[in-house]
């Protein structure tokens, strides 16, 4: 039940009605949200719920232990236990097979026997997001930034809350769990904005991302040797936009659905392709992940308050691990490492020439173009099934094979729309949302149905999962 499916929308309507019917009773609304969340996940596959339940139980005991512990050493041991158990889940289900394959490649030539049969462990949907969110809570409790007084049910719901459980955003306890005991409210304006946000998310995902993906990106990445160099370059750009509209569309839906229940999720994107340097890009892209990496990895490593070489090391460590978080494949580590190098170079440049206070338009344009180019080029590694394919794709991009005929007018149109909506002033979005909110209810309904019809006609024929679902 993907969040851009009719089943999900019907599910949200039913849960919405039930939730607001009982919202004044704490246990009523908690029960509705928890049951809905369990149901939502179980529809994907129920087995991982047991893993998640075990994970939450361990974390909850650690949290309660920290609340009662007088000794800092005990608190440290408990938070360490929580981190280790969560990372253990991630390592076991996500990285064990990569480790086995790597060991086979490294040790088999030396005659050292390593298990040759794959482990065949299924990666629970949303495990990476689950683990990071779980760690954020226990560490926040340890740091005194989050309350340890929440009940087990609250803790469980915080981890399984259905709008975000499969692909984030990674929500801090202060942004979600802290509000469970407050009686929620939803003004007509808040509700209207939420519906508008969901509608925008659907358009982003179904009309722009999916069309770009199925009409150009998939064919070209599937067989780059059949396409001209320019077509490969356009496909790489198209994938860059597809990934953004896919994930930000999902995030819009998640944020909008959470808002329908009175919760405010943090933003996950801030028009990342307008970034003027790679550091700024990471301050605009997948914010809930990048801020998590900043708060729970980069700063504990010393952040910027260490020697310059150590800062560079920290950047590289964070980016490589952040890359690997996306998937158990060394190409993600390579992708992260390249970004780490780019960040390092950018940081060195700032150290050398200093931060320009008001850069001119040419410099801004050059910065944006350079950053975007780096992002597009590294996206090839992100999208290709393996490094060999990525290498072949790069080679094809620079071979100079002429032609651009395979890029259809529909793709050009969608690319133009993608660029336009990415660059358009935020004011336009705000005004549109306000306009929608002020519409009479019947007109709103007509607008939503018309939007649905438009999506039906413009979207790709086949449904496509979210790219980030695999992470």
């Amino acid at each position, binding site marked *: 039940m993907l969040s851009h499916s009719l089943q999900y929308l019907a599910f949200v309507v039913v849960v919405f*009605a039930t939730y607001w019917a009982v919202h004044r009773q704490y246990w009523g609304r908690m029960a509705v949200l928890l049951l809905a969340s369990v149901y939502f996940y179980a529809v994907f596959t129920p087995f991982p719920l047991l893993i998640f339940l075990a994970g939450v139980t361990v974390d909850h005991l650690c949290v309660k232990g920290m609340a009662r512990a007088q000794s800092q050493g005990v608190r440290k041991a408990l938070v360490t236990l929580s981190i280790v158990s969560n990372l253990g889940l991630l390592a076991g289900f996500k990285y064990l097979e990569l480790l086995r394959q790597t060991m*086979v490649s490294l040790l088999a030539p030396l005659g050292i026997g390593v298990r040759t049969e794959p482990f065949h462990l299924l990666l629970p949907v949303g495990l990476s997001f689950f683990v990071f969110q779980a760690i954020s809570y226990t560490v926040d409790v340890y740091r005194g930034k989050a309350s340890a007084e929440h009940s087990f049910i609250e803790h469980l719901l915080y981890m399984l809350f259905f709008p975000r459980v499969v692909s984030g955003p990674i929500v801090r306890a202060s942004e979600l769990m802290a509000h469970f005991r407050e009686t929620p409210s939803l003004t007509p304006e808040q*509700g209207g904005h939420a*519906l508008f946000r969901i509608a925008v998310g659907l358009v982003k995902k179904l009309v722009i991302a999916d069309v770009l993906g199925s009409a150009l990106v998939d064919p070209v*990445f599937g067989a*780059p040797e059949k396409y001209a160099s320019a077509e490969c370059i356009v496909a790489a750009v198209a994938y860059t936009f597809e990934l953004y509209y896919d994930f930000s569309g999902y995030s819009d839906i998640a944020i909008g659905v959470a808002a329908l229940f009175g919760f405010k999720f943090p933003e996950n994107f801030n028009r990342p392709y307008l970034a003027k340097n790679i550091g700024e890009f990471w301050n605009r892209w997948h914010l809930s992940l990048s801020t998590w990496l900043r708060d729970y990895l980069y700063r504990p490593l010393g952040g910027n308050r260490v020697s310059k070489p150590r800062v560079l090391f920290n950047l590289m460590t964070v980016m490589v691990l952040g890359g690997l978080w996306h998937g158990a494949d060394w190409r993600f580590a390579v992708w992260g490492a390249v970004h780490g190098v780019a960040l390092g170079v950018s940081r060195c440049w700032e150290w050398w020439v200093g931060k320009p206070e008001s850069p001119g338009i040419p410099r801004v344009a050059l910065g944006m173009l350079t950053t975007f180019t780096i992002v597009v080029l590294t996206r090839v590694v992100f999208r290709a099934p393996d490094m060999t394919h990525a290498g072949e794709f790069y080679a094809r991009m620079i071979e100079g094979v002429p032609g651009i005929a395979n890029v259809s007018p529909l793709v050009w149109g969608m690319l133009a729309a993608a660029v336009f909506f990415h660059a358009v002033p935020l004011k336009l979005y705000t005004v549109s949302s306000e306009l929608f909110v002020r519409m009479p209810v019947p007109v709103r309904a007509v607008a939503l149905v018309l939007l649905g019809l438009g999506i039906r006609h413009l979207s790709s024929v*086949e449904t496509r999962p979210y790219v980030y679902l695999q992470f």
Partner: protein
Amino acid sequence: MDFLKARSTGLTLLLTVALALGLSLAPVPESLRPVPSLQRSGPLGPKLVALVLPASLTGKKPARPPPVDTAVADVLPPEEEEPDAGTSVADTVPTLPLVPTTPGIGLEELSAPTLARALELEALRERMGAQHVDIELNCRKSAPDGTCLEDGLAPFTRALADLRADTRRTPVRVVHLGDSLVASDHITDMVRDRLQERFGAGGRGFLFITRPASAGRWTRSGRGSDGWEIARLVDTKWPRDRVGWTGVAFTSGGGAQSTRYDVEGSRVAELFFLAQPASGSVQLSVDGKPVQRIQTRGFSKTKSEAAFARVSLPEGAKTLSLTTSGKVELHGVSLETGTPGVVYDTVGLLGGMAEVYLRAQPAAFRAQLRQRKPSLVVLMVGGNEAFFYSRERTTLDQVRQQMKDLIARVRANVPDSACLVMSPIDAGVRTLSGDVIPRRGSKEVGDIFREEARAGGCAFYDAFTAMGGEGSAIRWLDEGLMLEDLVHPRVKGSDLLGHLFDLSLQRVFAKSHAPLVAVADPPGLQGADAALVKTFERLGRREAGESMRVGIAQLGASHTASHYFTDAVREVLTKRFGDAGRGFIAAGKPSPRLETAHVARELEGEWTVEDALDAAPGGLWGLTGVRAVGAPGAKLRIQFCKGCPDAKTPAGRLDLYTLDVPNAGAPDILVDGQPVPPDAPLPEPLAAPTVRIRSFPVSGPAHTVQVSAPADSGVTVLGAALEQDTPGVVLDALGLPGATAFTLRDMDAAAVDAQLTSRRPDLLVFWYGTNEAGKADLEAEGLRRDYPALIARLRKATNAECLLLGPTDRLEQDANGQWHEAPALASVLSTLPQVAKEAGCAYWSPRAAMGGERAMLRWQHAEPALGHADGVHLTQEGYARLAGAFVRDFLAAYELHKKAQPTARVEDN
């Protein structure tokens, strides 16, 4: 209800849902309907449920999220566990023929177990709306006036006919190239098994070095080490200059690599490799012992070329291992039995298309194909072409050109081989609203393939129509025959596709081939509904819990005398209906064939075992046509349930059959070591030899009867029988090797009738015919006249029903070593059904159950062997296999009877 207040979000949602539903159901153009599927025919409720509930809650399998990388059309479907095919006869579960079989669809030559499975698939076909589609033969060779001289499959059907006639000494090879549907080998294994069953198995055929993909079955590859570098024609960077139709290059780049094959039953292995400059070598080892080292260095110092090395495998070889030394590129290994039979090579490449096979290096393609000397090349692609066409990533013109080129290449490379093109099967896609709709392209691509096959002189098989046409993938998904990807059939669906394709091939063969025995010999139990009513009634009452005995006496020749068949039948029947004892054992010499039944015979002193084969008519014989004549003082022992633990229950009866001779003294009889009381004096002295049946009460399962001839005269013993007072079945095996129905006819009628009546049979099974089939001078008319009379006499004596078994597939070898049908086989096959009909008996054809025409050859070559080298008898495994088929049909007819007359009863006899 705050959420429904004016201007509220809830009201917006409610109105939106109402408007969307209203528009979807309103009579407006479809383009204005938000959810068009609601307007389609059928009740609204289920459609709404399907729309809002996930598939896992509507009784369908949960839809896994589709793979994120949808760039590749063809991926390896996940493997499913296959049902374990039970081999024990006792495990035989009778299944009813669920659909009436239409004569001529190709089922006729399947052996009984395969036929049973085929009938299940027929029922599935009926339910799914799949169809029997005939192969369009087209024309591969025409006369100048346009008359077709040779149809598209002629070389293949000719080769099969040669195999059938035993005039071919080389295998008939099929090379089947395709995509992932072939890679899983679930469609092709069905075709391979069926062809090999009908025409003999020539071996496993071509196998990859190791699995070319990281998943999937190992059935079409060796088990290779991890370090093989694998390059496939489907890869972006495919091996351009060296791989032929085998499609995959396995290179040992760094360090020695190895692979291992299971070669049981194989006698010839052929290595496919690349001969290239500065290449290394491959060490071949059989069961761990080195047998040959093959140098893969080519003659040319600059060029590489496809090369082959043939190796003989010793008899009984179990594994073949290949270990490389230096840089070596291998393409595969073929394994063959070295005997005539069908070899079915399959190469399935994930993402395989005509265009992919055209990527093969032309010279390697030609060399590899010629090396195999195929009688048929099957091209089964199109699924990926249809996928790319549906995504507008290729055009029909391109698809046409590619198939045209591939056909031309095959025809040019192996001009003497037939070729067959298959259409792609139906597929589906999911839409935004969760609807599953047919994927466009399969029909269009299939139509193009049909035209190109016709133009290129290849036959064409419309798998799309056979599957059920457009939309069938959706039906198959609903019935669990299709994977969630809506492209790949599950094992059951693949089996159905293989079944349909195989039958279409068989129909072509049947039309092109005059039967070697021009007699209708249908499989299955004929006439049981009328002939076995009382038997089935009694079995039904026994099964329902009534304490009663059901007696079956099987009279016959060596097939019966071997006990293997009856032991297997008894095992199944007694397991289901209860065991009322071992039944009759003839007097005679010790026999290992009785050991499995825990029965032992011993002769001590001077004994002569005589039989009725060449005796004058009218002799007195035991029920099997045998009598053991002991000299004075000689002893005979028959031991039942040898080795069984002592027990006091159940109570039972031990009968001893002897021939009392005038003026001879009474024998000394010991039952379980205890002397029995002397016989009461006869009212009158015997004037002629007389059969005497003595009955002794016993208890427990294990018993021994000993008969000692008196010191002053001899003794003649006919046999002994053990029965227990437990309800169940008693099955007597009354066989005399070499006997015919005439042998039984010529035995003293009164003696036979008296003995048989004492056995209280409810059913008489007659299994004569195989020996009659071997008589060049058989008087068929005499058989047709006397056999019914004999049956009528015995039925009258016993008040039993009857069942006739026909001959097995009896063959004879001529001086040149070629096999032919036994001289009177056709005559017997046509006579015995008439005899059964006239005598009011049911009829069952063992030959048809074996697989019909020339089945004996296939049974001889089976692994383990099922047929004896003499072309007459079966091995123990063969009898067990045949018994399994018989009992399956017998119990299926019994089940039908139960269904038809659930409450009917007849009087106990």
